Every structure is written in structure tokens, then in C-alpha cells.
């Protein structure tokens, strides 16, 4: 059932989270979470609502700072990871809310924050809109996404198209790690299949992948490795081939299954 895990030529992790703890006010969202992300490996991040999945993803993309612990990008320990630094390193994320600018077109959204520059004049960087449009179009076409009009504000597009734009933006810059937060939650059957196929294609290029999903069918369909979070702690971290649905569910919910996780 699982896609074969490609053996990485270089087994060093691309990104490492070491002993991450994060509080929101008095609430502990993550406690002492460590995770090594390997090139080409698809990690499914599962857990109940409030287990800390999205928090972990947002820490790895630089939106949240951990209260304790550190993030390693390759061999470098990064004290203060911000979204720009994360993107420069090649970490991209498709957030559950998509984070699109509704007032901008698809091309502008795909190229946001990395607009090609035609000319610099003092502090001003003049955009090369033609190149931006061409690059966005090529990339979107390469994903097999059906989207002709890249200029109309994306607020006028359908949910599936908006999702495609968010994915296109993330895959364009992700050469180290790409994270998908609930990528298929809003999609129909056909689009879900296409998205999962895309996740596998991205991983096949040697990019580390994190997928948050509540759908265990999706998880077992694509994941090489399954990490379960429960109440902010890792309750399971195993290769997908060495676990079962029952064990995953048990670790997500804390219901006894063999081992006691409570």
C-alpha cells in the first residue's frame, strides 16, 4: 500500500526540530518535541484537534518562535527563524487558511515575496511583471492545474483554484521542505487524488514533506513515516510500514493499545 521509501543518498536531515516547547499564554501547545526531517521522506503528522500539529508547522515555517528548543537548517542552528529566513532556505508551507491575498491575482500570489526584479533604482526594485506572469504560468501548468486567468483577483476564484494557487506558490520555492496543513480537507475526490499524487511527486524530487491530515486513508496512502502528536507531545514516531491504523488512532487519542500513553 505504501509507496517505497526512496533511500536517501545522503541520510542527514534537512531540517531538525530539537526539544521544541511552545506556550500560548498558560497553555502548553508543544512540549519537548524533536523531529528530524529527511530528504524525500513524507511524514504524516496526525493528532487530535489541539494536539499541536499546526503549531509545529508554523514553528518550522518561522511564523511562531519556540519558547525552548532549537531549529537546525542543515548544519546551522537558527536561533530566530522568521518566515523570510525559512523561505530563503527553501521551506514552504501550504496553510490551512491558504494565506492568499484576495485582492491580488494568481500570478502575484504565486510570486509574492519573490517578485522578479527588472531594475533597481535606489531603494526601489521595479518588478518584471512579464517574467513573473510567465514563470507563474509555466509553474502552474507544470502542476497540471486548470487555471487560465492569472490576473483576476483570486477572491473571484473557486475554492479548488485557490488551493491550487497556494500549492503552486509553495512548490515553486520549496527545495528543502514543504509542509501541507490539511491539504485535502476542502477538496473533492478527484482533487484529493491529484493533490496526493502531487505530494508524492514533490517527495520524489528529494524534498522533505510534512502532511497534516485527519484522514487516515490519505495518511496510509502516501506517508513513509507517521508521527502522532497528543497534547503537545510526540506519542508515536514510526515508519508507516511498521504500524497499523489501530495503533495510530490509539496514540492520537491516548486510548490504551498495547502501550500506555496517558
Amino acid at each position, binding site marked *: 500500500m505504501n509507496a517505497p521509501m526512496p533511500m536517501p543518498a545522503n541520510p542527514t536531515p534537512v531540517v531538525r526540530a530539537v526539544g521544541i516547547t511552545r506556550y500560548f499564554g498558560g497553555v502548553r501547545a508543544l512540549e519537548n518535541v524533536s523531529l528530524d526531517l529527511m530528504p524525500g521522506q513524507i511524514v504524516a503528522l496526525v493528532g487530535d484537534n489541539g494536539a499541536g500539529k499546526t503549531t509545529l508547522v508554523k514553528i518550522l*515555517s518561522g*511564523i511562531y518562535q519556540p519558547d525552548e528548543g532549537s531549529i537546525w537548517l542543515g548544519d546551522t542552528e537558527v536561533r530566530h527563524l*522568521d*518566515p*523570510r529566513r*525559512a*523561505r*530563503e532556505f527553501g521551506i514552504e*508551507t501550504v*496553510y490551512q*487558511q*491558504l*494565506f*492568499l*491575498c*484576495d*485582492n*491580488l491575482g494568481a500570478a*502575484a500570489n504565486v510570486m*509574492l*515575496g519573490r*517578485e522578479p*526584479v527588472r531594475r533597481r533604482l535606489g*531603494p*526601489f*526594485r*521595479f*518588478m518584471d*511583471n512579464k517574467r513573473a506572469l510567465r514563470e507563474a504560468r509555466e509553474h502552474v501548468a507544470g502542476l497540471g492545474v486548470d487555471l487560465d486567468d492569472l490576473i483576476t483577483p483570486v477572491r*473571484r476564484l473557486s475554492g479548488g483554484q485557490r488551493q491550487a494557487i497556494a500549492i503552486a*506558490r509553495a512548490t515553486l520555492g520549496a527545495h528543502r521542505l514543504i509542509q501541507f496543513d490539511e491539504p485535502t480537507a476542502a477538496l473533492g475526490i478527484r482533487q484529493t487524488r491529484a493533490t496526493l499524487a502531487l505530494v508524492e511527486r514533490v517527495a520524489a524530487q528529494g524534498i522533505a514533506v510534512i502532511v497534516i491530515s485527519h484522514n487516515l486513508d490519505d495518511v496510509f496512502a502516501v506517508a513513509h513515516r507517521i508521527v502522532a502528536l497528543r497534547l503537545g507531545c510526540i506519542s508515536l514516531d514510526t515508519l508507516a510500514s511498521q504500524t497499523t491504523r489501530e495503533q495510530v488512532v490509539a496514540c492520537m487519542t491516548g486510548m490504551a493499545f498495547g502501550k500506555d500513553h496517558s
Partner: protein
Amino acid sequence: MKNSPGALLSRMLGGGRNLGLFTTLLLALLLISLFSPQYLSIDNAMVVALQVSFIGLASLGTAFLIVSGNVDLSIGSQYAMCAVSAALLAKQLPVSLAWLAGIALGAALGLINGLMVWRISISPIIVTLGTLTIFRGIALRITNGFGVRGVPKSFSWLGEATFLGVPTPICALVILGIVAHLVLQYTTQGRHLFAFGGNRQAAEAAGINGKGLVLTSFALNGALVGLSAVLAASRFGTAAPTFGVGFELDVIAAVILGGVAFTGGEGSIIGVMLAVILLGVINSGLISTGIDPHYAQVVKGAALVIAVALDQLTQEQQERHRKKLAVLERAGS
């Protein structure tokens, strides 16, 4: 259709909304000239341009701010502080330093607002409503509430100088207006202002430096207000702490009439400039036709409300049209 003069003009102006403003402006000029034929003259155009240039300069900065989802209500008080400070300093320092100090003070006041808006996550309307009162209070305090006396004559040079017969405030507006248009429309900085105004979280997740954007746009806005105030004080030969009362309302009205969405993320400098000119023409036109100038207030306010209402109605109509197309498409397939 694609190459009709109307379409060409619409493209040049950057959208149908601006075409509407342009047409309204032409209509207004036509109406006024019917009642008052002497209105259409180079000399009068210069007078009107001079009148609007002070609001025009400030509206450039306010357009940037509102596009990025912020606003600064304290610009009228900044205007007063910059004007009286420049006039007071001109009594002690070389006048050129006094002019520069007025502009720098504007930038500093804007930056203070920006820092507070960034740090205190409550509406910029509330923060700058507070500084509106504070800055006005300071302007009144440092002048004891009176106009500044004994300003050297040379202070007036900057505002009264002309370049090729055009007064400096108009030159400043034209040059800075073009720069603002280019920056907003064609640079990554401009794009990021739109992105930030459209969806702040999305912009920051994409690595855009929100703090830099907010602080810079507030400081730039303040500098433009300072420039406007220094030019006005200089032309006037002095300044009073009551300068610029209600200035922010005129500026924001022009910016919104110019098609900048108050919620951020939409707008163009061309639209704002057309609106600034239109409001100036309404003002001076009503006076020159002999209508009670108090009506100018009514007409300007009505123009703003009608424009915003038209925007809303057009949007709703487009929405209905798209819906109809989608339904037809489904039925066809």
C-alpha cells in the same frame, strides 16, 4: 471595441473607475464654464492647482497608508506642528534649515505613530486619534495659541519660488505624484503594500517585512505632510497653531473618492490625483459661479458618498453577472 478611444483612455488611466472620475471632472469643468466662462484659463488653472497641491501632497502618503491597511488621522495636527515649528525655527536658524526641520519633524511624528500602531495592536484609527489631540496640543503650547510673529522674509522663498513659471508646491506635487505612482504600481515595495493591505497574515507568511513596511509608510506620510506644511507656511510667511484643522478629513475624502478602498488593498495614485483635482474644481468652481460657497461642502460630501455607493453597486452587479455566467455554464455542460 478594444481599440476604441474610450478603451484606450481607460487603459491609460488604469481602470474604469478612473475613467469615471475623469469624465466627472470634464463634466464639472463644462458646467462651471457655462455659468462662468472666465473659469477656464491658464491663470485660474494655476490658482486651483496651487490650492489643491497642499492636500494633494498629503494625499499621496495617505493613499500609501490606506492601501496598506492603515490610516493616520493626526495629519492635520502634524501639519500644524510642522508649520509652526518651521516658522519658529526660521527666527533662530538659517531658513533652509528651518524648512528641512519642518519636513524632518513630520517624518518623526509619522514614525512615532507608526511605532505605536505596530506595537499596540489596536486600530490605527484609535492610536492616531490620540496623537491628533496630542500634536495639536503641542502646537498650541509652543505658540501660546498665537500665530508666529517676526518670521524673516526669506522664509517665504521656498513656497513662492517658481520653476518655469510654476510655483514650487505644484512642482512638488507633480514630481512626487509621478514618483508615488511608479512606486505603488511597479515596484516590489508597492506590491507588498497591496499584499499587506489585502491580507496581512498572508503577506507576513510570505516573508514580507511588515514592520519595515508600516514604519516606512507612516514616516513617509509624515514627511509629505511636513513638506506640505512647510510650503504652506512659507507661502503664508508665517504659521498658526490652528493650521490644518480638518485637513485629515479633506485628504481622506480625496483618497477614498480616488478609489482607494478604506479596508486596504485597492487603489491608484492616478485616481487619487483625479479626485484631488475634482474636489479642488468643485470648490473653486462653485465660488466663481457665485453660488454660496457653503454649498461646496455639501457637493464635495455628496460626491464622496455617490462615488462609494457607485463602487458598491458596480461590484454587486458584476457579482450577479458572474453568477449568471456560472449558472449558464453549468446548464450548458
